[in-house]
């Protein structure tokens, strides 16, 4: 059976060159970067080389790059670390309703610790209004965190504008760029952000490794205590193989970005066109033009998401859903809900996220199997009226 992977926003396969780059650090170069003898020095050189390369790609200085275990840890450090370090100045934080759970749950934790959090709304296209941010900033606000590109719908936020507002008011600005890296050029100076989270496994790198850019001089409380690793911001023996892999992956997606974006845009647009032609009542979530090029989030009216996932899985196609059933909660996607999407439509949302190995043949195959799946499920649906069916 054909196997087509269309869930690259969940995770990506390792790029072969990334694996090549990592292998020596599992074998002969296994040393601990804190050791002063040769094995340790080799590891240390690899670590600092990775730090410099990462810094160069995003326009930071190497002392502003901190390696972590991934996007979630980077987000946790940014939110909780900044909130705690600056709590004498104030205990108010601003974020948006459509953030990744790593941000939202960190904020909820802070609320329990006596902090106050404002969750900015988004419009029907998923965009945060900079004016809403301006109005939400108070004297006791210490941090604003708004994601760069959304993992579910792919919407890109006006980070530069948002950041400018925070900067004017003297408030730190963090962005979760996990889904943006590799698709949007990341320039921390131009964006003027204070912190930026990245993840390895979303960019054809390994799982369990990521990084955070923390601007020089920013006050942040470490969240993991132990040795003096990562300039005392993050204790724990460095995952050298992972860090080398992360950096290699970052280099590759940065180098191939323009070609890949063109490729991905071609695929998603052709896919969307084909579906709209062959399936009635397809609902697209989020602005088609303000999104990362690989992501499409669609609902097929009258059909629930998990049943589409299962049906596609039987055809060898892997996709994700915004339905409650697949998230382990009873609520539909918080992102789509924030965009004002009705619950029964949100329950049917399917996220197609393409990647570098997908081809137009994949697009044709998935577009050819979907109409029948949707038709079958609609014929069973009590909320898709007969008159709506062809």
């Amino acid at each position, binding site marked *: 059976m054909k196997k087509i992977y269309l869930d690259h926003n969940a995770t990506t396969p390792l790029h072969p060159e990334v694996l090549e780059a990592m292998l020596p650090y599992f074998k002969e170069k296994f040393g601990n970067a804190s050791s002063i003898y040769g094995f340790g020095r080799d590891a240390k050189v690899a670590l600092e080389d990775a730090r410099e390369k990462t810094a160069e790609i995003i326009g930071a200085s190497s002392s502003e790059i901190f390696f972590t275990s991934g996007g979630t840890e980077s987000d946790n450090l940014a939110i909780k670390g900044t909130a705690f370090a600056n709590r004498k100045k104030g205990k108010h934080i601003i974020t948006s309703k459509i953030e990744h759970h790593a941000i939202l749950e960190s904020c909820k934790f802070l609320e329990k610790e006596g902090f106050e959090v404002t969750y900015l709304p988004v419009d029907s296209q998923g965009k945060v209004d900079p004016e809403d941010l301006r109005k939400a900033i108070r004297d006791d606000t210490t941090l604003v965190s708004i994601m760069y590109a959304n993992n579910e719908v792919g919407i890109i936020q006006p980070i530069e504008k948002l950041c400018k507002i925070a900067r004017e008011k003297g408030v730190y600005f963090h962005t979760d760029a996990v889904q943006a890296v590799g698709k949007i050029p990341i320039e921390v100076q131009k964006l003027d952000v204070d912190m930026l989270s990245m993840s390895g496994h979303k960019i054809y790198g390994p799982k369990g490794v990521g990084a955070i850019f923390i601007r020089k001089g920013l006050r942040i409380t470490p969240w993991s205590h132990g040795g003096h690793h990562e300039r005392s911001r993050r204790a724990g023996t460095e995952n050298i193989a992972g860090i080398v892999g992360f950096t290699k992956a970052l280099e590759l997606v940065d180098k191939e970005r323009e070609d890949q974006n063109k490729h991905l845009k071609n695929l998603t647009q052709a896919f969307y066109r084909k579906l709209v032609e062959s399936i009635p009542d397809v609902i697209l979530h989020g602005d088609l033009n303000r999104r990362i090029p690989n992501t499409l989030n669609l609902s097929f009216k009258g059909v629930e998401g998990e049943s589409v996932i299962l049906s596609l899985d039987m055809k060898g196609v892997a996709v994700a859903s915004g339905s409650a059933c697949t998230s382990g909660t009873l609520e*539909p996607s918080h992102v789509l809900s924030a965009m004002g999407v009705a*619950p029964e439509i949100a329950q049917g949302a399917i996220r197609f996220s393409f990647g570098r190995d997908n081809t137009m043949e994949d697009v044709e195959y998935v577009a050819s199997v979907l109409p029948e799946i949707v038709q079958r499920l609609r014929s069973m649906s*009590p909320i898709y009226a007969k008159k709506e069916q062809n």
Partner: protein
Amino acid sequence: MYSAKVMEHFQNPRNVGEIEDADGVGEIGNPVCGDIMKLYIKVKDNRIVDAKFKTFGCGAAIATSSMVTELVKGKTLREAEKISRNTVAEALDGLPPIKMHCSNLAADALRKAIEDYKKKRN
């Protein structure tokens, strides 16, 4: 995560559709939790002679709907009333824990359809 039997019923659900002149109809669920089910029964001499369903929902919701229509056909109303969520789940070789709560509505829909039938008769 699903048993082979659940997947089989999801792929080939029995008794999908509506009964135009149904003697009882049971509707349950809501769009927020993601499952909506409508169950139709035809009753003759206190016995359920036909059952059909329409379901908006996940794999478990569709499979439990299908299974309940199978279980109920030919049963007397009293026998049918004894069909519980557990009966349906067991007949499908079990359901994942979270689905026991949110997507195992078929037995409830059946009870509502029987109530509806009784109400109409009185």
